[in-house]
């Protein structure tokens, strides 16, 4: 889960990282009051997408009245599909130099990874590798000051600025650990006050979804569409796509493979849906129902019955058909545990069932678009 900039900075400030002390506001009036305290400021849209500066989501204001005006422009604005409902009133900084520093989870090394660069202020992907310092943290030992000092030196910080950097990085790491982050990023880490002070001018903080159960303190920010939220509420992995053939499969790999096969034969998948291994009748029926509600041109169900029992999947489909009716073409491919019984049940309800995945995919494409794949 991504946190808004203001929350990210709050997590960092809690751990001793200087953040400029901005104030989050929900109305132009609040922004005006905040600017009175802060002085010349930046009015920054609180959204979870990148590139908000270029999209007009950050504006400068030199007086409280200007801050109010800028805030009323930004609040309510649509930024890449998200409506802005909060702005951060942040002090304007005179920046001498911009650094980059982040901590992420490195899956290959199986350790937290620190990246730091003297070439900050731009997306790290655009910085040449030889200008980035990479350092893994021994997760059992933790991050010790010496490692921070080594990194500081490699990005050109010495003396008191190195000491400040140790504090910044230590604070980031402590927050990273405490809140089970998958990303903590400060970009830019700004050198201000005539080169005497480091300040986190922007901050990103992504908490891992799998660890949210430990952190009820975070307000849930759900980034999905309405349909995605609905299916996720059933407990299934779901992603909405651009196409028009709804897809249900069991297992994430199988679901991905199903999209691939469908696409291979000219179909346009409307979604990714992992109906799970061994889910019961009820959630399967609910998921199927949700797919149906999007009015696709056809529905493709692809089941390899391992733990999943094919007869139970059939039961779920038949339940939906009987209660609400299925008014679009439905193609089912079903093999594995209890597959004969499952296919029989479907046949009795007038639903086509295949054993070969390719054959089934071609059939659903034809049913959807009225032509051979």
């Amino acid at each position, binding site marked *: 889960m991504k946190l808004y900039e203001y929350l990210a900075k709050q997590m960092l400030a809690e751990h001793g990282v200087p953040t400029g002390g901005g104030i989050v506001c929900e109305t132009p009036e609040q922004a005006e009051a905040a600017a009175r305290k802060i002085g010349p400021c930046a009015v920054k849209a609180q959204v979870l997408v990148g590139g908000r500066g270029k999209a007009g989501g950050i504006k400068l204001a030199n007086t409280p009245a200007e801050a109010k005006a800028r805030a009323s422009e930004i609040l309510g604005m649509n930024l890449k599909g998200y409506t802005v409902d909060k702005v951060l009133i942040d002090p304007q900084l005179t920046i001498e130099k911009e650094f980059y520093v982040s901590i992420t989870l490195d899956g290959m090394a199986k*350790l*937290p990874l620190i990246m730091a660069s003297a070439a900050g202020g731009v997306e790290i*992907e655009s910085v040449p590798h030889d200008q980035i310092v990479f350092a893994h943290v021994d*997760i059992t030992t933790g991050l010790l000051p010496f490692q921070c000092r080594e990194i500081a030196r490699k990005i050109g910080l010495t003396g008191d600025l190195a000491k400040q950097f140790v504090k910044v990085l230590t604070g980031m790491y402590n927050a990273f650990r405490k809140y*089970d982050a998958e990303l903590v990023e400060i970009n830019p880490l700004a050198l201000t006050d005539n080169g005497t002070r480091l300040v986190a001018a922007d901050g990103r903080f992504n908490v891992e979804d799998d660890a949210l159960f430990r952190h009820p303190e975070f307000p849930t920010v759900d980034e999905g569409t309405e349909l995605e939220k609905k299916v996720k509420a059933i407990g299934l992995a779901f992603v909405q796509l651009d196409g028009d053939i709804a897809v249900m499969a069991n*297992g994430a*790999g199988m679901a991905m493979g199903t999209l691939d096969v469908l696409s291979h034969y000219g179909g346009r998948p409307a979604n990714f849906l992992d109906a799970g291994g061994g889910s019961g009748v009820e959630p399967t029926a609910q998921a199927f129902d949700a797919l149906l509600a999007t009015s696709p041109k056809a529905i493709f169900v692809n089941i390899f019955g391992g733990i*999943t029992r094919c007869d139970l999947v059939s039961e779920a489909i038949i339940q939906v058909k009987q209660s609400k009716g299925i008014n679009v073409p439905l193609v089912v491919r079903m093999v594995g*545990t209890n597959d004969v019984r499952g296919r029989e049940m479907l046949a009795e309800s007038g639903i086509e069932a295949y054993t070969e995945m390719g054959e089934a995919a071609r059939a659903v494409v034809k049913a959807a678009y009225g032509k051979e794949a």
Partner: protein
Amino acid sequence: MAVIINKDTRVVVQGITGSQGQFHTGQMLAFGTQVVGGVNFDKAGQEVHGVPVYATMSEAVERGGANASIMFVPAPGAKDAAYEAIHAGIKVLVLIPEHVPTQETMEIMQYARQHGCRVVGPNTFGLISPGENAKMGIMPNHIYKPGPVGIVARSGTLSYEIAFTLSNNNLGQTTVIGMGGDRVIGTNFVDALELFNADDATEAIVMVGEIGGIQEELAAEYIKQHVRKPVVAYLAGKAAPAGKRMGHAGAIIEGNRGTYQSKVDALSAAGVKVAALPWEVAELVKESLK
């Protein structure tokens, strides 16, 4: 012959008394696996399918002689249970649970590394050696048969599909390894390739990969340098858009990392035959074994 587990593997089931634990203990026993005990602190003394339940892992090791553990403990208790297993001296640890916080997985991996314990998973379907009647996992028993193919897969059902096709084509398996779908896992493609490469009974290797991460690319590098046995791959996620996580935590294309094409290119350059569709894998394996 097989890798990681064989007929001498003595399995303990952590969380044996839960519904998943009970069901799969029965399935593993049915496959012929030596399940020597289960663990649940509050239900010590009971039995599940005739298997004794111990209070702690150290008892399961001392009294049951366990040397491998499969864990059905819910994610919030996974770290504690994994440390308990490693501390008790377990040398093969299969982590079934999904949604284990990644930082905890990292801690588990470091503890395992320090104690010489092989971890498979988390978020894996486990592993199975059909010719050895040894299974530590949740895959269906009936789709496998003994034979010369080693399979390593990121996802469960897709690998079942492929294993089943192989079995139906009389291409049985030495061992099938489920890597797990998480970002941080104990045994990855390179580890599995190394094992299969050294295993005399394995004549061909099948990789079932998917988009996201750079594991397939690293595997390609390893194959180029070390593997002289035929390798066939199928990769899921060709049709998946960038930036969307496809079920598995690892299956997300970030920046220019982990795309379908980069994986196909890397593997092809390493001499791996990449199947465009799942059912083509069996054909490619058959050809490569001629």
